[in-house]
């Protein structure tokens, strides 16, 4: 981890990533902007501050592992991977095309993708496997897993939650992108999750609630997670779906729809204005 984070620079990076998300989705003509925009700060902090990685050597055995369990939000991950140099930025404009390096949901053909995802609810188990492998191999890498809030309605997540605590996986840190919406509407109306922090604590986890758009809070939470021994940590990051784009914020339609030409123009204006502030 870089000793002194430059908060301002990370904020700017998150804004660049948002611009990249809008551009690639607009070009692709389909995809999931809402949940990509909501976790832009979390992904930025991970890929530009927290993760111990070597983009030129994606299979470096001692790398920290990151797994995107909410696979549909891959545009945010692709933007970060491209920015870190895992592959040429030109690939972003081929998203979702036949034969593309960047598939509609994460695929191992993409440098930086450890395990495919897309079918929700499996990622925390995948992260558990990575965590156990690290323990067996006596490696000091850490494992990070980003989940969606709608996703944790899957039973598999709670099987994994039990197992991560049972096996005392303190090298594992999960992040929940808690933007409050799923495809069919508000989480609280479709299938309520609260009390969420209590649930994770009852499952044996150290749980931290933060503002998922506040870079300093995100950094502090990841640092805290490293100090917790004997149990896994979950960072419940309260976020806004579609964050940073006025026509997309809290609009459920943008869970899985790309912006049209007018919306794209508006979105890029919003983001560029924010960047110049």
């Amino acid at each position: 981890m870089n000793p002194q984070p430059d908060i301002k620079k990370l904020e700017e990076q998150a804004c660049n990533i948002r611009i990249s998300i809008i551009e690639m989705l607009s070009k692709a003509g389909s995809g999931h902007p809402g949940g990509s925009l909501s976790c832009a700060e979390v992904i930025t902090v991970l890929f530009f501050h927290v993760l111990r990685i070597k983009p030129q050597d994606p299979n470096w055995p001692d790398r920290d592992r990151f797994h995107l369990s909410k696979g549909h939000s891959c545009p945010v991950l692709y933007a970060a991977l491209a920015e870190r140099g895992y592959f040429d930025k030109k690939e972003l404009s081929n998203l979702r095309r036949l034969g593309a390096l960047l598939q509609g949901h994460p695929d191992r053909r993409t440098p930086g993708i450890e395990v495919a995802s897309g079918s929700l609810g499996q990622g925390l188990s995948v992260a558990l496997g990575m965590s156990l492998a690290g323990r067996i191999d006596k490696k000091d890498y850490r494992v990070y897993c980003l989940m969606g809030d709608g996703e944790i309605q899957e039973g598999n997540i709670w099987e994994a939650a039990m197992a991560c605590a049972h096996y005392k996986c303190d090298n594992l840190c999960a992040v929940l992108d808690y933007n409050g919406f799923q495809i069919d509407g508000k989480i609280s109306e479709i299938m309520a999750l609260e009390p969420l922090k209590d649930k994770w604590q009852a499952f044996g986890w150290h749980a931290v609630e933060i503002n998922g758009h506040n870079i300093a809070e995100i950094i502090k939470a990841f640092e805290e997670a490293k100090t917790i021994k004997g149990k896994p940590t979950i960072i419940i990051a309260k976020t806004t779906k579609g964050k940073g784009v006025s026509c997309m914020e809290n609009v459920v339609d943008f869970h899985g729809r790309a912006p049209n030409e007018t919306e794209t123009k508006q979105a890029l204006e919003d983001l560029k204005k924010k960047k110049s502030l």
Partner: protein
Amino acid sequence: MAEALYQREVYGKTLVELGKDHQNIIVLDADLSSSTKTKLFGKAYPERFFNFGVAEQNMMATAAGLASCGKVVFASTFAMFATGRAWDQLRNSVCYNNFNVKLVATHAGVSVGEDGASHQAIEDIALMRSIPNMKIIVPCDGPETKDAVIAALNTPGPFYIRLSRAKVPTIEEKKPFKLGKSCVIKEGNDVSIFACGIMVEQAIKAEEILKKEGISARVINMHTLRPLDEEMIIKCVKETKGLVVCEEHTVVGGLASAIDEVVCENIPTKVIRVGIRNRFGQSGSPAELLKEYNLTGSDIVIAAKKVLSAKGG
């Protein structure tokens, strides 16, 4: 036929043997380690054994995570739960990534016996055969179980190995095991009888009955369903007058379907299927159930005669 063995006992012991030199072997179970015999590995190498409780979906996706870090993962539970409960995890987290996860499932088929239909997987092969990258072995006895486990360890990618609950007699006439290559157990030129798993024993019984009646049957142990020995199938169509396929599985999607696909595309001929037809299993002793579901040597004899009469043989 020689000594009868539990395939799962052989499996557990083989894992312990292999675990010594292969430090990258990790074994997982979901609360059935006493039955699947993975507990033998757990006892020998506790740091490389994980029990996930009654949570097969978590076991399967965790296997993928371990494999992504270079481990060879053997994951076990009953065939019903291994292939049914965790199918999505197996498809998306294991097979799509082409990971080194070896799913070794026990208690397949109606020969599970008294536990009844809920525990008798009869559609597991169909479920596994439909997933790209998955290789499938259905060993016929104890020693072949060991061969299958070693082949899975030495061959990259996901495997499904299907084992029985009950003791099975050792088939003496086998040739050395080769992944993807079937093995002729009895030579014959009237009818070809293909079988896998415990049905190989029944096919041999059928061959003995048919021989007494002057019908010469070829018995082929089709232990590998993926990759399938297409060459042998085509050869048998050319050299004999008809095919019978036997499996302790529904006639939909298993060995018979696999052979039918090859025959239809290459050399159409009549194939009679000996398997379970649109029914669930039920309680009973394994022997009673094989009889009830028409899976005995006598049933294979009837099928062989049927295919020969259709051919005018």
